[in-house]
């Protein structure tokens, strides 16, 4: 990690991934003891192309309590977003918690449109991306091979050995 180009800008590619319901979206937060906690959250998206937004279903979920701790005590949060062979790692700051208002209602109505009129959300979180890295398998391998060409290349692989061995 850390060798790829970091940017806090959400490119069009990431925005399209974030807006895709079928993409894999995982949020990583920190527990009180500093240990990591991860949870899938397919509500993760961007509405303005600049900040990230997600809804939490439960006030008392581990993720939600960790996000409160994140905004209170300035703890980072990270996301992994992937679809097919695309993947991004986003580090972010917890910016705002919404318990009412237009964005809250928008996220609630989105959930109800997907899951039925009785679906509910607890609250909505907004994040400011601090860094974005492409972490698809292809990109990571290319990067590593540029710096460490002899790692992870077992010599029995067909792409390495000759056919007559």
């Amino acid at each position, binding site marked *: 990690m850390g060798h790829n180009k970091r940017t806090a800008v959400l490119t069009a590619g990431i925005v399209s991934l974030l807006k895709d319901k079928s993409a894999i979206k995982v949020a990583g937060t920190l527990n009180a003891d500093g240990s990591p906690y991860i949870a899938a959250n397919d509500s993760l998206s961007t509405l303005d192309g600049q900040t990230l937004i997600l809804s939490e279903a439960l006030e008392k979920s581990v993720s939600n309590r960790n996000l409160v*701790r994140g905004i209170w*005590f300035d703890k980072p949060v990270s996301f992994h977003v992937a679809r097919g062979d695309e993947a991004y790692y986003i580090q972010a700051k917890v910016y705002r918690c*919404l318990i009412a208002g237009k964005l809250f209602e928008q996220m609630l109505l989105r959930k109800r449109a997907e899951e039925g009129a009785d679906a509910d959300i607890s609250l909505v979180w907004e994040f400011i991306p601090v860094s974005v890295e492409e972490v698809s398998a292809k990109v990571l391998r290319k990067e590593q091979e540029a710096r460490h060409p002899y790692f992870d290349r077992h010599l029995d692989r067909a792409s390495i050995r000759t056919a007559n061995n």
Partner: protein
Amino acid sequence: MAADRVLEIDRLGRKYPDVPRFIILKLDLLRRGARLTSRALDAVQNDEYRFGPMLIFFKNGGSKKTDRSNPGSMLLRDGTTAPVSFEEYFEDPYRVDYTSGKFILYDGRVRVDEVDFTPRPKYYGHLTTSGIPMESIASARAQRLIICAYRHCHLWDTGDQCKYCAFFTDLKASRPAFDTPLRRGVDPEDIYETVREVLKEPGRISEIYLTAGMDYRGEHFFDEEVERYIRILQAIGRNFKGRFSSQIMAPAYSKAQLTRLYRETGLTSYCPNIEVWDERLFGWICPGKNKWPGRKEWIKRTLDAVDIFGKGNVYTQVVAGVELARPHGFKTVDAALRSNLEACEFFAKRGVIFLSTVWRMNPASALAGQKNPPLEYIIRLSKGLYDIRKAYGLSSDNDDYKHCGNHADADLERID
């Protein structure tokens, strides 16, 4: 001076590192109030923010109508509600300005943070069938609907009102606000219709809260008031399939009255506020409650309510800081703190949630001219109350940051 005070928030933040800056800021906002610049006031004159009609209250207790509206409660970035007063009589309020599409909070010239306000509910501007403006019946916090069931406190009839209180001094204040004077009583049907309208807005409300001035009339103390609450709660209940998240802040009722309230309505929680724990100070500050039904009985009835509503569903509050009021209050914050923490422990042991709100001196009250409590005291108190309740496994679900917003000590429970 203002810059020093922001440093004071941060200095205290460093001294109490497990109390978040947002909560310290909230406590300070409650003590000191806030004023909107003319730009910020302009930015709330719309259907997104316009709340109650704006009255200006003066140091002498009088009021004047203006042609503008105030916003609702302030919302901090972490979702904390700060029910800040925007009234004129605060000596040294925070300032809210509006720049680049954002509300920014300042202490003097120092930028503190971006803030927002509780959105204007969509039922505002609607009338009930009988022509009553719905916003005169219920107001809203972020997730709580607040219904004032009776707009008079009979303790004022005999001069027995709580010393810090300025509610219902008369109904004149409502006249400029709503053009027609508000009646003392509210028709349950108007309340039913208002709640029905409120529920049309998706995800707007998750608790209904009833409050009123004290009415001790009846064969037994409070019989008339209990009847009124039962009628109102039954009317509200027609909107729901069963019990619904709700609380009444009311006097200490007898077990028989509470049993009826619980059995005959969908009520889920009950909050008879003790206001001041110390026996001597209770008698001085709350002379009316000391008569109807008296401190000992108030406490006994609060504990009895746990048998009916269950552990953790009965609440009581103190008006933090009033126990330091001159001339009879505690001389030191340590003594005041000891008293309140003792009360919290007493109630927590018995399944009652003991919360604090911050006293804001009101010029129309008997304690006009006195000082609001020191910030460090209310930080220590909030943390102390939170720690005690946590040790007893209590969680203030009906009075948390979403359902109420008055209690910094309950806000701290968000990470548990």
